[in-house]
């Protein structure tokens, strides 16, 4: 081997290694970086105070994240309740009961819709969901609301999650071996019994993972929710009152936080919180998928 070839070989090798290590270092860097910026507030307050206190007065140095965590959890759960059953049944229909052609058309469509930016979903939410909540839903319950509410946030998130979860569910259902379906049918199962006993049971880890990853996505979504949720500090049971999820807190206040001491650190803490929660959910459910893929 001549010298030029050997040198290129070494250089390219170094480059490849560097790329991979840098990539794998990203989560570590994010974790460390956010922790470093959030350190002042973690040092100055107890963790349980930060997580469970409802007192949010940055001017007085009181940072209780409870209202934000509450809002985040509220819209996420709402989005999950609205979208998960819909996606599950739609995936069953598309892969099991529907015409072959429908699935072939829908697969690329779902794939493309999953790539539409969240700000577009937000625009749709402002145009459709917010007025619909204010005009049609709220009067039914005899309350007053601008429409910018937890409910609107939940609905927009649900719609955003649909292509994402549907995609994963269809993939899960398509990996179930035909032979197993044949076995169930040949033993006298009706089509639905086959779906129940084979598709759903065999695909159960996959279904759970799709749901889990959908929840994680909803929990971290920023712009679309920010646009419709109202952004008011409040802990309310009613879906018609506005909320203020964690990502919206970060996004809304970054410009103005420099003047208040510890405020930027508090926002970094919020980002760290999101990062940790979502990374844990992702690692957990991805592990499920990786386990089942190998079988």
């Amino acid at each position, binding site marked *: 081997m001549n010298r030029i070839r050997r040198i290129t070989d070494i250089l390219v090798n170094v480059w490849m290694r560097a790329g991979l290590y840098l990539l794998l270092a990203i989560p570590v860097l*994010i974790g460390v*970086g956010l922790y470093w910026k959030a350190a002042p507030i973690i040092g100055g307050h107890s963790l349980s105070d930060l997580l469970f206190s409802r007192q949010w007065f940055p001017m007085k140095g009181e940072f209780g994240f409870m209202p934000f965590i509450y809002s985040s959890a509220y819209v996420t759960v709402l989005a999950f309740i609205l979208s998960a059953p819909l996606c599950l049944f739609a995936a*069953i229909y*598309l892969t099991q009961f529907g015409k072959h052609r429908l699935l072939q058309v829908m697969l690329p469509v779902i794939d493309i819709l999953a790539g539409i930016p969240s700000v577009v979903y937000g625009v749709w939410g402002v145009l459709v969901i917010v007025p619909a909540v204010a005009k049609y839903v709220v009067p039914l319950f005899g309350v007053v609301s601008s429409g910018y509410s937890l409910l609107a946030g939940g609905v927009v998130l649900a719609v955003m999650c649909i292509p994402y979860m549907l995609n994963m569910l269809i993939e899960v259902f398509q990996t179930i071996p035909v032979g197993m379906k044949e076995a169930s049918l040949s033993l006298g199962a009706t089509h639905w019994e086959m779906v129940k006993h084979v598709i759903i049971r065999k695909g159960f880890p996959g279904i759970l993972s799709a749901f889990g990853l959908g929840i994680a996505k909803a929990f971290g979504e920023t712009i679309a929710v920010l646009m419709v949720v109202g952004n008011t500090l409040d802990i309310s049971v009613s879906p018609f009152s506005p909320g203020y999820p964690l990502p919206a807190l970060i996004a809304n206040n970054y410009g103005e936080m420099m003047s208040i001491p510890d405020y930027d650190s508090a926002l970094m803490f919020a980002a760290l919180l999101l990062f940790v929660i979502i990374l844990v959910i992702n690692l957990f459910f991805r592990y499920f998928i990786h386990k089942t893929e190998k079988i």
Partner: protein
Amino acid sequence: MRTWKVWEQRLVKGISFLAAYSVIFILLFLLFVVFSKGLKALSWGTVFSLPKGGYYFGGEGGILNAIVGSFYLSVGATVLAVIIGVPAALFINVQLIRLKRTQNTIRYLLDALWGIPSIVYGAFGFALMLLLGLHASLLAGIITVALLITPILVRAFDEVLKTIPVELQEASFSLGSTKTETALRVIFKQGLAGFITALLLAFGRGIGDAASVLFTAGYTDNIPVTLDEPVATLPLSIFFQLSSPIEEVRERAYAAAVVLTFFILLISVSARFLSKRYAKNIIK
């Protein structure tokens, strides 16, 4: 067959039919609303001019700053992601080919990274920016978006690379190629279709993402000339204009939403088309 079995099956079929078609309806409805609202507001002037005086109070001008800005930002981030990501993906599939466990662990970590919300990248990018002594600028935006899209690019490329048979590499080694030569000449060529798909996927994510550039790229009415100038992006231009109380400004947000959606659709469709075209040269 028992009657209740028939009814149970009919009920489930009915429910799932409704679910499938309501999903289709909702998604079509979404596109319809965005397009019908936006196309009305769309004009040559909106797309091809910069904001002029009094623009944010309903004055003359357009969103060219955001369109070009988004393009600059996403191209820069994609280039950076390619520089980091492509060698990493090749490394996973050439050097680590015998280490299945390591490969799977890396894929697992990258998949998990894919799920991290962009606001977290945004916050981290901001911290990084302060550390490096940058201010909100095209460069800071490019770095942040690159962090966001590199895992996506790598995993999408890797999905195709991992289907290339090991024998092909062995054949290349037996002809006297080194590992890196094999990676660049054989594996990269075989995975070209996957590379293009991955590239466009990452580019699309870069164009569409708002939360990561919110504090890192800034916002401006001009088209940036150097890397350290702030830059406007389409998602943020939609976001800012939509919160305006003035109807004309909101109209432009709808127009910008159509432009953005159109770009994303164009990118997705061409990714599908190109990956099919290039797939023809691949040894199965």
